[in-house]
């Protein structure tokens, strides 16, 4: 039993209603039709499909600290050594061979396993202290200096996967292989939507700029074995912002309204005839689709933002698909009650030329990420929003290749992410790596595994990661499998 949950459990057990075989009859707080459903509980439960129980019913397990999450996923994996894990010790060690005692026979990827020399490379950028907290941040990320007191830098992240596909799949679904629901879909399943006009779970992709950009996969925002209405809805920067949102015939809203009215009447007639409650749900779905045709363009059109917004986020924010534009959009989504916003940037995988390529990506990411925190704060939203920034693993302290234009290979044993927002102890760092930024020194006590991070995210949303389960193939699956502990040290 974890100490942190003991008390909360005692309180919440009384309120908790599991999804036991009896079923409570309360509708699922499902992704898209949550509000719609309140009047028609049964049809919604049915609409999750035969055999699919609703998600959480009743109050949350813990008093929630945040209502929503924005996850800035730095796909490709930024180097912790050159961003947030300040290591003055590397000044002396630079150029030396990585001692075997540090590497400890750790498995390497196929890309450097054959390399003969493992020469240590210090950060190619100097670090400065920022804010009242004096957090050390690389000069590559100057705008992060402004949020130094808001973010908690977790330096002791670790994972098991050493390649992109399994590693990012692990981060976002709790499992390296395809098949599990994504983090956001668990949240949608557990908490449902706060918005009547927008989905509970939105996904924003960058227009990737790096030639080595990482591919993504629908599974990263998929619903796995959860009903598929919990999957993330992509908000696109090219074409229809939501797939098939726009009528290719350019019909007027009036025409559409008329079509829907006639459709509803015909469907109602049929329902009276055959009594199928599913028809009511379909009518409601069409109504929501109508509302989305207005709410989505309104959401993505940032022309109503004052110039100060673009001062904050940078001019990039005017270009759809940039990280800055996506950060701004993430804020607008959060304002509108969207539970989970997943933002991807995927240019960080630099096996060569890292000292020239990392700064380019940092420039694309830095201002928008920092602006998002400042903006949420000034709007009073940061206190009930959780923002996470990080990649799927770190990068090696040793060089891939040689010379000044070296690369860094994948490094799962330690890396840095940051968290900010409700319930997070800003202006602090958590966990520590060794002099080589290669291993976590206090791994047993302060190491943060992927499952621990996910457990913590769930906790902040008011959910016990051990109790938000879904029965599939006879097993009550969790986001965190059979692992994960809430990381108390990052909580305020």
């Amino acid at each position, binding site marked *: 039993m974890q100490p942190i*949950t003991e008390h909360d459990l*005692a309180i919440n057990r009384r309120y908790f209603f599991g999804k*036991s075989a*009896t079923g409570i009859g309360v509708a699922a707080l499902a992704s*898209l039709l949550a509000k719609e459903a309140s009047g028609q509980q049964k049809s919604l439960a049915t609409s*999750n*499909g*035969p*055999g699919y129980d609703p998600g959480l019913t009743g109050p949350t397990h813990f008093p929630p600290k945040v209502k929503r999450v924005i996850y800035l996923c730095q796909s490709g994996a930024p180097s912790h050594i050159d961003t947030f894990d300040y290591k003055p010790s590397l000044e002396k060690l630079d150029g030396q061979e990585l001692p075997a005692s540090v590497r400890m026979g750790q498995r390497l*990827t*196929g*890309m450097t396993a054959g390399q003969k020399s493992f020469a240590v490379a210090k950060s190619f950028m100097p670090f400065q202290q920022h804010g009242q907290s004096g957090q050390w941040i690389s000069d590559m990320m100057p705008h992060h200096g402004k949020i130094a007191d808001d973010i908690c830098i977790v330096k002791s992240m670790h994972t098991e996967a050493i*390649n992109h*596909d399994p590693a990012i799949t692990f981060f976002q679904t709790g499992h390296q*292989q*395809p*098949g599990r629901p994504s983090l956001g879909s668990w949240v949608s399943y557990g908490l449902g939507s706060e918005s009547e006009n927008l989905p509970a779970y939105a996904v924003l992709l960058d*227009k*990737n700029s790096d*030639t080595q950009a990482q*591919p*993504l*996969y*629908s*599974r990263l925002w*998929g619903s796995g074995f959860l009903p*598929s*209405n919990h999957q993330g*809805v992509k908000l696109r920067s*090219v*074409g*229809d912002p939501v*797939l*098939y949102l*726009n*009528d*290719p*015939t350019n*019909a007027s809203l009036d025409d559409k309204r*008329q*079509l829907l009215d*006639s*459709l509803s009447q015909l*469907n109602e*007639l049929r*329902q009276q005839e*055959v*009594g*199928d*409650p*599913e028809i009511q*749900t*379909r009518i409601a779905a*069409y109504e929501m*689709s109508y509302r989305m045709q207005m709410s989505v363009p309104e959401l993505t059109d940032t022309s109503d933002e004052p110039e100060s917004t673009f001062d904050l986020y940078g001019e990039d924010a005017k270009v759809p698909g940039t990280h800055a534009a996506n950060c701004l959009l993430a804020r607008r989504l959060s304002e509108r009650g969207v539970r989970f916003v997943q933002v991807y940037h995927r240019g960080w995988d630099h096996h060569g030329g890292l000292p020239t390529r990392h700064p380019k990506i940092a420039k694309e990411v830095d201002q928008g990420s920092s602006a998002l925190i400042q903006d949420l704060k000034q709007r009073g939203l940061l206190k009930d929003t959780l923002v996470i920034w990080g990649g799927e693993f770190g990068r090696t302290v040793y060089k891939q290749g040689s010379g000044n234009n070296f690369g860094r*290979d994948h490094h799962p044993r330690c890396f840095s992410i940051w968290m900010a927002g409700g319930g997070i102890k800003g202006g602090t760092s958590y966990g520590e790596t060794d002099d080589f930024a290669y291993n976590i020194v206090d791994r047993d006590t302060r190491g943060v595994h992927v499952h621990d991070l996910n457990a913590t995210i769930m906790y902040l949303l008011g959910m*016990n990661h051990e109790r938000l389960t879904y029965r599939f*193939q*006879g*097993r009550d699956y969790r986001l965190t499998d059979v692992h994960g502990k809430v990381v108390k040290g990052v909580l305020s």
Partner: protein
Amino acid sequence: MPFDDSGRMEFHDKLSHLKMSVMISRFQFSLFVLFLFSECGLFAQDTPQFNRDIRAILSDRCYTCHGPDSAAREADLRLDDRDIATSNGDTPAIVPGKPAESELLKRVRSNDELIQMPPPDSGKAPLSEKQIILLEAWIKNGAEYDDHWAFISPKQADAPTVQHQDHVRNPIDAFVLKKLEKQGLKQSPQADPRTLIRRVSLDLTGLPPTPAEIDAFLKDQSKNAYEKLVDRLLSSNRYGEHMAKPWLDAARYADTNGYQYDLEREQWVWRDWVIWAFNQNMPFDEFTRQQIAGDLLPNANDLTRLATGFHRNHPITIEGGVIDEEYRTEYVVDRVVTTSTVWMGMTMLCGRCHDHKYDPISQKEFYQLSAFFNRVPERGLNGFDPRRKIESPLQSDRLQEIDKRLAAVKQQLQQVAGAEGLPFAKWESLVKADEQANWDVTVPTEMKSAGGATLTVQDDQSVLASGKNPVTEEYIVDLKADANAISAIRLEAIKDPSTVNGGTGRGSNGNYVMTEFIVETASLEKPGQFDQVAISSAEADYSQKNYEVNKAIDGNIDKSGWAVDGNTITDSRTAVFIMAEPIKNAGEKIIRVKMSFQFGLSHQIARFRLAVTKGEATPLTLAIQKIFETPIEKRSPQQKLQFNDWLLRKYASPEIRQAADAVTVVEKERQTIVNSIPSTMIMAEQTQPRTTHVLYRGEYDQKRDVVDSGVPAALPNLPDGVPNNRLALAEWLVKPDHPLTSRVFVNRVWQRLFGVGIVKTSEDFGSQGDWPSHPELLDWLAVEFVEMNWDIKALQKLIVMSGTYRQSSVVTPEQQANDPENRLLSRGPRRRLDAEVVRDSALLASGLLVEKLGGPSVFPYHPKGLWQEINNRPGLSRTYKQDTGENLYRRSLYTFWKRTVPPPSMATFDAPEREFCVVRRSRTNTPLQAFVMLHDPQFVEAARKLAERMLNNGGTSVDGQIAHGFEIITSRRPNEQELKLLKETYQKRLLQYQQNSADATSLLSVGDSPRDESLDLSQHAAMTSVARLLMNLSEFMTLN
């Protein structure tokens, strides 16, 4: 016992009293238990049965710590084992007959956190009052255990007799009615014929009936009209296509590899096999045998080997850094999991890391099963082999046909050639005299490097570039040849130690790209005036892919040109440039050769040698020259053929050449077909089988005990007399006494037809799975299926012929309240159609559907940029190349399936990604589906074409036209109100479009298919609006 609503109310009251009561008589218990089940709406018997009532409770709440997993077991207590459960320690968990003394009951009732079970920190919910009552009653009755029902071979019970015997069409109905009658319920009346033909057509072929088919059915007054309909549908080719769909989900079939860049694979020939096998009505046991072990069958052939593609459909990685064995292990595990789910409804994956928590599967047994699949000669990274070129069984007539034609033209050639055949030897003797050009190596008189390199002539008359190595380069070389005429110039790139790799190029990687090769001449009198000489063709002994030598004579001095993979292959190279017309009087001219290297990165030739021909004779091609120089006895058959062909073309009479050409044409055609047959991934056995180990925590590098292939002890033994390999596994699965295979398949067929299986958890028949709604029916069907020799069509015919299937699906409020999922089967099936069926129905309704069996996957309408937006690495990622023409309108199972970006409109309608085995899709109802139906060009276009059919075939009245469309969409005629509403829409729109033809044009220009221009624009547009409305009706997307 009588039972009504008041009884139910009473039950609730009594339940609350029950909590207080300490002593309850056995009679009372029975009474309450009866109510309890009745309340569930499913069961109406009076004593708890272990399998039906108790196992689920113990399994779900207790087995995690007190079940089969020895490693996780607490306090040495097993509740899945009666002996231990009743004898454990001083205070046995269960004292049969004595609930009050049973520790189990004390614990589940306790509020004390230290005593209570399940423990508060276990994540398990406490038992409900109902469950506690059940346990208590069961213990009181002696706490008898049974083996898990699904692991006991099914026995066929006689169909029960029922009150409404007249409603029994076949034994299925007897089982269903028995249960309904026990609860005082009835079945619904039979559905009307229109509903029935729509239902059964959609269920058996995935497409609705046409008005003509409906008409014919309505008119058929014969007693077996419905049976004839069913037979017609089952014999349609559409049947196999429709049956294939859920099988493709289960088999995780896709057109890409999954993982990372998710590039395409060509596995569609296997998909064709599935369609073919279903249409052949291959019995399920054979279907199983071939897919699991088709390569090991005594009479194995290409078709049976093709079937084994089933187990190569899993994702395969190409991500550079992966550890090979890690992924190879994943593939093997995937096969175990998929096989267990598809054939046995077993959740075997648990066994990868530890003993199963709920079912009697040890970790060791998991790896014994995996051993069957661990002997494939395959890799983890890029693990596409073994593969084999096998023709699609749906297209095998193509080769047969062409082989016939080939034989005919060959015979023709033989006839023309005469009895002695063709005189190749004689022809070859002519070659020497006629054809062999002599090469004259020529030393430059002048030469210059535009980039400033130093050019020096070497001993072998070649020219070496040294010194400065510019980024781009041009060599300008003047030659003086002592020849009457020059028909060709030969360039040799000679390997030289001065390059980085001792090869031919000065590039930093050893390669070169000659971007242009230009020949000019000037007369000796006017040495400054050069004219370009046309080059007709070029040939090289080696060209790098995409850098063929003809790119050096394409007239573009760009970056394209001739390269030779010089970074990896360092051999000297030769290219020959043939002049369009021989250079006449060459001895009186200066020949200038310009070699341009504009690629950059110093990609220029390091050392070259030039030669010219001495006369007008054109040189043999390099390939022919090489064969010619090879002694006849050393020529390969391929070379002989090639050379003979060349001789024939050169020397044979026009008549012979014509006959030979005919052969060539057909041979080329044949080759095109052969080339279009992809290599399909199939299974094979290693000659030296890998050793299989138990893997600690399932990790690839944590090898523990060695195991041999085998099956779980809780299930029947492997068959005798078969080698212990995949074939044994296949034979084992289809052993008549295997308790799972038949039940699981029958249940999935039931699920497909009724929306919910008899066992709702069709993927889990284990102890965590649901108790069957009609256990005797399931077993009856399972036994029947085996006895009818696993005849899949017959099984489905049996079910759709039942009265149960033929009921009306109209739902009363009572039914909806008491049995929303229709588990009691008091009405007919009703559900939203699957993604594919929705799209196919729209295509059929519009008349656009192109029905062609099998073949490569197709690329219908698709939002622009969708693939690139999530995956756009230059050189690796693919763009979606939308098809044109008929491929836009094929059935949806042929749509190209990219795992990381599944076809978006289908994904919106709950189609799975196909990254892993799925045997039960979810069925949601979302606004995004409305977007697809309203805005996907596929549906907008379909509405336009449907409108054309309405206008053209629906008679002259608007009423008739609308009614025609309505019938196409819903299979019924509209009622007055519906017609009125639709007509209003039509008239309103007509007015609008008459006033604004731009709106009409905009509506009518979606989609590639041409508009029927004979139709009035406004009328067509107005009717298209009606058609869109029809296609968005809930009824269109619903089977009812």
